[in-house]
């Protein structure tokens, strides 16, 4: 599979975000899963994904330091796993 940094991802159309002090709650109306986005930076990146042609482009646009990329890649892969993120159309 393509490295997650090169993939074009977007929030699933049936996922809603609710901002919280720790980050956000993400609720998937399709599979009824609730996920905690545990850092405000993750929330910013997730919201920006749809406007960029790749995950790494979104990370750059959100000014995420290169050293933090691996942890963001892992977090976003987890969100793909739970179907919160899907391939951008």
């Amino acid at each position, binding site marked *: 599979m393509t490295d997650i940094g090169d993939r074009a991802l977007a929030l699933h159309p049936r996922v*809603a975000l609710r901002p919280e002090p*720790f980050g956000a*709650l993400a*609720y998937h109306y399709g*599979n009824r899963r*609730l996920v905690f986005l545990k850092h405000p930076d993750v929330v910013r990146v997730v919201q920006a994904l749809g406007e960029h042609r790749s995950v790494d482009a979104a990370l750059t646009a959100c000014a995420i330091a290169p050293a933090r990329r691996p942890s963001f890649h892992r977090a976003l892969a987890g969100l793909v796993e739970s179907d919160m993120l899907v391939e951008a159309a």
Partner: protein
Amino acid sequence: MTLAEQLKSGLDAPICLTWELTYACNLACVHCLSSSGRRDPNELSTAEAKAVIDELHRLQVFYVNIGGGEPMIRRDFFDIVEYAIAQGIGVKFSTNGAFIDAERARRLTAMDYLDIQISLDGTDAVTNDAVRGAGSYATARAAMDHLRDAGFVERNGPFKISVVITRHNVNQLDEFKALADSYGAQLRVTRLRPSGRGADSWNDLHPTNAQQRQIFQWLLAHGETVLTGDSFFHLNALGGPGEQLPGLNLCGAGRVVCLIDPVGDVYACPFVIHDEFLAGNVRDAGGFTKVWRESTLFAELRQPQSAGACASCGQFDACQGGCMAAKFFTGLPLDGPDPECVGGDGELALAGVATAAVPRPSADHSHRVTRLDRPVPVLLGRK
């Protein structure tokens, strides 16, 4: 602050909440959390219920767990559910299935964002009906059949079979799972609480200490395929490192969840319908939002809680002292062990509780049963 600490200190709005639409019920289950049976004349009107939904929408509550009583008894049940869904609030509702016939099954199947939990407490009529009443097993199975025939699972995903684990059905966990699988449904198991009429049946029904180990191992083996509503976190004291049940492992009462009862009273959770845990009413000025954000009770619950007598136990981080409601309705202090503490500390504590000191549930909407104190004269005649 860790996520758990953040959640314990409370959110601006609940993650989800339980909303019991009516105290009316066709059944009289011996463990009913809300002592339901008869409708309360003061229950929220349709307009008031819709105003609550408007508030939940503004608060961005993603979904509500609707229950009762039997919520489908309300004539405006579909009206309320459809209104919530139209506002983008997902609905899960708990039912005994008595009002799900072929036509209603098709109507429920056609709705988006709807999830159904059908209660069943035994995989055979004898085990189930002893708790839920004569005929209730057949009723629940008929409802499941109607949902299957309507294609509910294909369109909406698995409905849930919701089981309260007792001493008598604990050996049926594999059979419950097989039954759920046979419908393409999902199994949900929850903990028996000594709340409502459960206050009177808990002693006879709650799993033994040996059975609790059995439940823990079974849940560990089944992971996230079986839902639990996070209700068994007290069992985590049995696990070694890395052996924890899925879930948040915390009591969310008044912090991330709460209960709205049929008359609009807001309680810390569905298991504590008692004046001590009453935070306010949705009819008060400021509505539900003000109760959630400003009530004294909820503010107290969001303060760091003392581990009390459990502070010296090495397992406190795993079990968090267990369930507030289970302690309260068995007369135990809230900062001590759960009555079902797997370390056995609860049993010891229970032995010291005087029966008269145990709080009683505040409201009782049970069906009035006519008691015959005197022998009834019967005329025997010849045909």
